[in-house]
Structure formats: C-alpha cells, structure tokens
C-alpha cells in the first residue's frame, strides 16, 4: 500500500473527536427551532419555511393559535404556502385541488370539489409541535415518532449569576425585535463564527464599534483549558460559554510586534458581552449591543448549504413609553448598526468559509490553532447532545 495514493486530510484525526458533529451536514434533528416571527403569520395566514429539509407550513387559526404541518400537499406535493387558503375554521386548503387538512391533526377533512371522496378521513399529512413566545413561533422538527422534549431544553439557559441579567426567552416580560434572512453557508460555520473569540479583526472597523468607541482588543488569549465552560444541565440546555467575565480565564491581546500598524483601540469598556452557543444552533450574547440587552441568534439549518439566520434583540418590557424607546433604539441603532452593519461582516465571513468546507472537505483539511479552542469545545459538546440527524429529502440532487 503505497502512501501517496491515500489522501487523508491533516485534520482527519482531530475530526474523529467530534464525528457526529461533522456528520450533521443537514443539522440536528429532534430539536426545537424558531420557525417565523409571530407577526409574520396573520389569522388564516400561511407562511412556508424549510428546516433540515422539512418543508413546513405555519398557519394561525381563527383563535390566534399557531400550527405547523407539512408544506407538501400529499396529493401532488405542491407547497400549500405558495397560495395560502384557509376556508374553514381550523383547516388549511391546498390551492391546487382543494385537499383540506385539519391544522391540529393533519387529517384530510375534505376535498373542496370532491366532498364524498373515499380518501377523506383515510389520509393525513404530517404535523409538527409548535410553541409561541418571545415574538417567535417555534417548531419541533425531526422524526415523527420522537417524543417531544420541553422547549426549555433547546433554549439558552436563564442567566442568574449577574445582577443585570438579560431576559430569558421564556420570561413573560421579554420584548423582542428582529429579522431573519436566508443565507448561503452551512449552519455549523455560522454557529462557529458567532462563538469564535478569534475573529475580532473582522469587526475592527465596524460602525457600532467606532461610534461607541468600544474597547476592541486584537484577540482574546485563553489562559486555562476550561476558559470555555461546558454547560450541561440535567434535563436542561446544553451549551458552551466563553467566560470573558472571568479575568483569570482570558487575557486580551492589545498589540502584536510583528504587525505594528494595528493596535487595540477604543476606550469604552461596558459590561463584558459573554458569548455562548447552545444545542441545537443558537447563540446568546449578553449585554450586547449595549448593557442590559441581549442578542439571540439562531442559525436554523435549511439544507446542507443554507441556513435561516435569525437576529433577535431582547430587552425587558416595561411601560408603553419604555417599549416605544426600545422600538426607537431598535430601528435607528441596533438594527442598522448591529444586525446589519456589524453582523453583515459575520455573514461575509461565513459565506467565504462555505466553499472550502463544502467542496474541499474542510472538516478534514482545516488548520486549527490555539484560538480555536472554544470552537473545538463546542464541536465536542454538540456531538454529545444532538438528538438525531436531518437527511436530504431529495432523491436526485445531481
């Protein structure tokens, strides 16, 4: 067996350490994911989404309750969401031949033009469990017979160790504003970019950093092996957190003599923005864009090369005047400077990474360094706690 005919990537031994994560091209199945923002779906409205290859129609009944079911009509496979039609309470009707499904059970309740059809009550479409809070409709996606776990197991932990704790997604006092956009790039590259303590250079000249004169080191050097904390709550969420709040864990890098033309800048040092990543595909940034606020990000896998990027700013709801102030800040500060300018730089980085991982087997050919310690911790942790794997629903992808 001559050595030269076997091309084995230089990272292939390391990648065995988190095999299940490397295999999760389409995302982890059997988890809760955000589907759409609440205000996107009107009563008797329908919005179509795709999560891990599952095409899902989200609708809202006459009582305001949100439901999710397969967005593929069982008859000829068209998407119900292409032309929303809800003619009777608690149902959704396919615009093509009138197959009408019960929103709750998925049962084929009737066919508009064939009321005595034998198929009626003898066929059903798939439904998905939903929840709605924090301005988001959440969907549990995976194997149809998988027992639905509580959604709290798939959300970032409630922060309790800080006096100015940011609102948990299930806290009834939370108010949120946000956007979602479909992006090119695998979901894992997005999570890793969000968590990555080594990519500060990308944000060096971003508007929000310069405008706030925010302190910006060149990097964060981990001082301990467990600088990234593994969070593993029994019957609770699983994640990893960069403990920038513990001075013993990290040392900021202010200069590098070999590159004299760039130095740390900025004077404003507010409450540290701790960053944590959570199974299945969520990021929590505390005290960002400014103290007492939080940014939640969800990198929901659509397929193996695209994800839906949710950027959500969360704050405590208060009086109508305070809520109005939040809206003002969101529209004219957080959204343009944070969600758009700042995060657009992250998006550029993710999209730029995709090609190498998609076509050049990046998982086995990347060259990691010390600054990837928290990404590797995340990969290992996520390997342990993914509940299953999404698979391509397509028979022919050529």
């Amino acid at each position, binding site marked *: 067996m001559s050595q030269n005919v076997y091309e084995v990537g230089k990272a292939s031994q390391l990648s065995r*350490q988190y095999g299940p994560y490397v295999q999760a091209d389409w995302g982890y199945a059997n988890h809760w994911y955000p589907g759409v923002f609440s205000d996107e779906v009107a009563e008797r409205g329908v919005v179509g989404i795709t999560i891990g290859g599952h095409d899902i129609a989200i609708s809202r009944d006459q009582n305001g309750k949100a439901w999710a079911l397969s967005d593929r009509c069982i008859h000829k496979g068209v998407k119900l969401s292409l032309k929303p039609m809800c003619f009777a309470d608690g149902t959704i009707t396919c615009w093509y031949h009138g197959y009408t499904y019960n929103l709750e059970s998925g049962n084929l309740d009737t066919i508009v033009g064939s009321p005595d059809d*034998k198929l009626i009550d003898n*066929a059903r479409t798939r439904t998905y469990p939903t929840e709605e809070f924090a301005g988001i409709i959440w969907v549990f996606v995976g194997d149809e017979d998988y027992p639905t776990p509580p959604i709290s197991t798939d959300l970032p932990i409630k922060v309790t160790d800080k006096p100015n704790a940011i609102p948990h997604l299930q806290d009834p006092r939370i108010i949120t504003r946000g956007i979602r956009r479909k992006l090119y790039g695998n979901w894992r590259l997005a999570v890793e970019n969000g968590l990555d303590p080594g990519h500060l250079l990308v944000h060096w000249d971003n508007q929000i950093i310069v405008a706030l004169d925010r302190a910006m080191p060149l990097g964060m050097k981990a001082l301990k092996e467990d600088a990234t904390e593994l969070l593993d709550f029994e019957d609770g969420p699983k994640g990893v957190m960069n403990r920038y709040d513990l001075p013993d864990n990290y040392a900021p890098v202010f200069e590098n003599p070999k590159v004299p033309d760039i130095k740390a800048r900025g004077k404003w040092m507010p409450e540290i923005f701790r960053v944590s990543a959570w199974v299945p595909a969520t990021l929590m940034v505390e005290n960002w864009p400014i103290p007492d606020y939080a940014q939640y990000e969800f990198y929901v896998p659509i397929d193996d090369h695209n994800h839906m990027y949710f950027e959500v700013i969360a704050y405590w709801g208060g009086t109508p005047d305070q809520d109005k102030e939040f809206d003002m800040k969101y529209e004219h500060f957080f959204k343009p400077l944070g969600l758009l300018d700042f995060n657009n730089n992250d998006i550029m980085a993710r999209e730029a990474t995709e090609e190498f991982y998609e076509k050049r087997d990046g998982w086995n050919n990347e060259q990691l360094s010390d600054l990837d310690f928290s990404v590797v911790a995340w990969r290992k942790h996520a390997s342990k706690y993914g509940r299953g794997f999404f698979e391509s629903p397509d028979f022919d*992808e050529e």
Partner: protein
Amino acid sequence: MSSSMTTMEDPSGSSIRRVVLHFSDGESRTIEVAEGQEILAAAKARGVNLASQCTVGTCATCISQLLVGDAQPKPDVVTVLTSEEASRGQRLLCQTLAHSDAEFDMGYPSSLLLANPPVFFNAKIGRITRLAESVAEIEVKVPKTMRLKFTAGQYCRIRVPGTDDWRSYSMASGEHEPNKLTFLIRILPKGTMSDYLRDRAKAGDVLEMEGPLGSFVLEPTQRPHLLVAGGTGLAPMLSMIDRLRLLRPAPPIQLVFGCVKEADLFHLDELRARASFTPTLQVRISLEQDSTIPGVLKGNPVTVLSRTDAPEGTIAYLCGPPGMIAAAEQAMAGFGLSLSDVRSEQFLPS
C-alpha cells in the same frame, strides 16, 4: 337488518381462507384471511407488509393477479381498476375479499417486504485509511440519486475491481449516513481484496456493490447492551453504537474489542472519542499477545468477560471469527442469557 340475520363466526374456522401470495423470486407467503376481511389488511395484521399506499382503492399500488380461487372486489366500491382489468383477474388487495382459498401472483420479489430491499449500485471510494498493519478503512460515496438505507449490523457485498470475486463487509458507519458508507477491511498477506487494497486501490475508484444484506441487525432497546468484537468485527458494533447513543435515555453499552497483537490494533482514538460523546459507552480492549499499551487487557474478548458484564436484561451482539463466536456464545449461556438475546455474526478471513 336484524342481528339474527348476520352471519355468525363459524367455530370450526371454516370462514377462514388460506391465501397464498407468490413472489417473483419464487418465494411465497401464506396468510389466513377471515370472511369479510380485506386481504391487504389480513396480511398486515400478520406482519406481512405488502406493497400498498392509499388502502382505499385509488392508487393501485397493491394490484396483483388472481391465479386460483374466488376472490372478489368488495361490492359497491368504486376503484381505479377497470372492469376489463378485473375480468382478467387483476385485483386491488386492499379492496378484495377471499370467498375461497386463493392464490395470487404478486409481480414483485419478496425482498420488497424487507424494510430496505437490497439493490445493486456503484459507489466511489472517497477515502482509504490504513488503520493498522492488517486493517484498512474505506469510505465510499453512494450516488446522490439513491440512499442506501440500512439497519445497523447489516453488510454489503463488494466486487473486487478487475475480478469476479465478491466479498462481504459490515457497515461501520451509522444508519444516519445513507450516502457515505464506511467499511473496515482486514488486509491479509495474500487475498484478492487485500491485494487490490495494497496494490491498486485509490480514491475515486468505482466499486460494484450490493446491499444492504444480512439479518444481524440491531433492535434498538433501552436494555443493557454487551457488544463483543474481534478484529474488524468492530465494524457493525460502531454502527450499532451510533444508533444506540441517540436513544433517550441511552442504554448502557459495554464494548469489548480484541485483537491478536499490537500491530493489528486500531481505532483506539476513535473508541476514546466515542466514549467521550457517548456517556453510556464503556470500552475495554484486549490483546492476546503481550502489550505495552496502558489499559489494554491480556486475553481475547471472551476471556476478559465476567458475569457482571451481563446484568439482568442484557442483550448481546457478537461479531468476529468463528472460534471467538463459539466461545462467546458459550460464555453468554453461562451468564444466563437466553438464546434469543444473543445475536451473532461470524466471518472467515478471505
């Protein structure tokens, strides 16, 4: 209609018809069908899942040819079957009642009754890794136009390129990767597959394959699992562990993996990694010859076992050479495991 008019169940059982289903591969199944029961439903009730879809007579997936006997469509039911087709003896089994014993030609092979019928396909070698002096790992890419669904423990046959020889290898990869299969292959000093791998194999080669095959299959349960593997018999165990670790709660898994000598030993890193992301997995490794590797036990995978490895309710899966299997089966019986809880697959060097 008064209740006295309805037909009573005949206590002698004469209202039960025997219906024989003939498949195109020469196999047949006999099912008992009660008066008034659709043949498709009767088959399903007896665990025979015939090809079908709508079950109401509109899709014709369950169409079959009546050969012998009196079996008629249910009265007053409109189906997609034309009267001309019906007069030629074609029947939709979901809407057909047997009025006498009957026989049908199903027109498809009995393998379709399996969850994943075997198919022939070509797959490209993606990667070859020499794991030890005597072991190679190959990863093959299944064409994107298909998915090789299988059950952990099953195998594929692979034709050695340039020859008419076929060899069988269990999937080491998990059920969740139907487009990328991994196999562990023993490299012998001489052997048709060994010669190919040693001298000619390269990434990009196309392999002719058939699969999935085999009845050594995992039935995922939450009972304690004891997996005993010799050499490349580790392959099906890796696939089984991949499935078991996704159960909630995950069952306790004891893996005992043995090789003859250090030079044959492989996947120590892989097994350590598996244990790190599979909290319920415990791994022991044994070598028959003396070893300097820390933590490795002396002996074969059977001699290092003790009764405490098989707690109440244990189910055991064994894969390795014939001698190991025989010894392991004996050990399992000694631990009090019943025959039905010991599943084994043996392989011969080739």
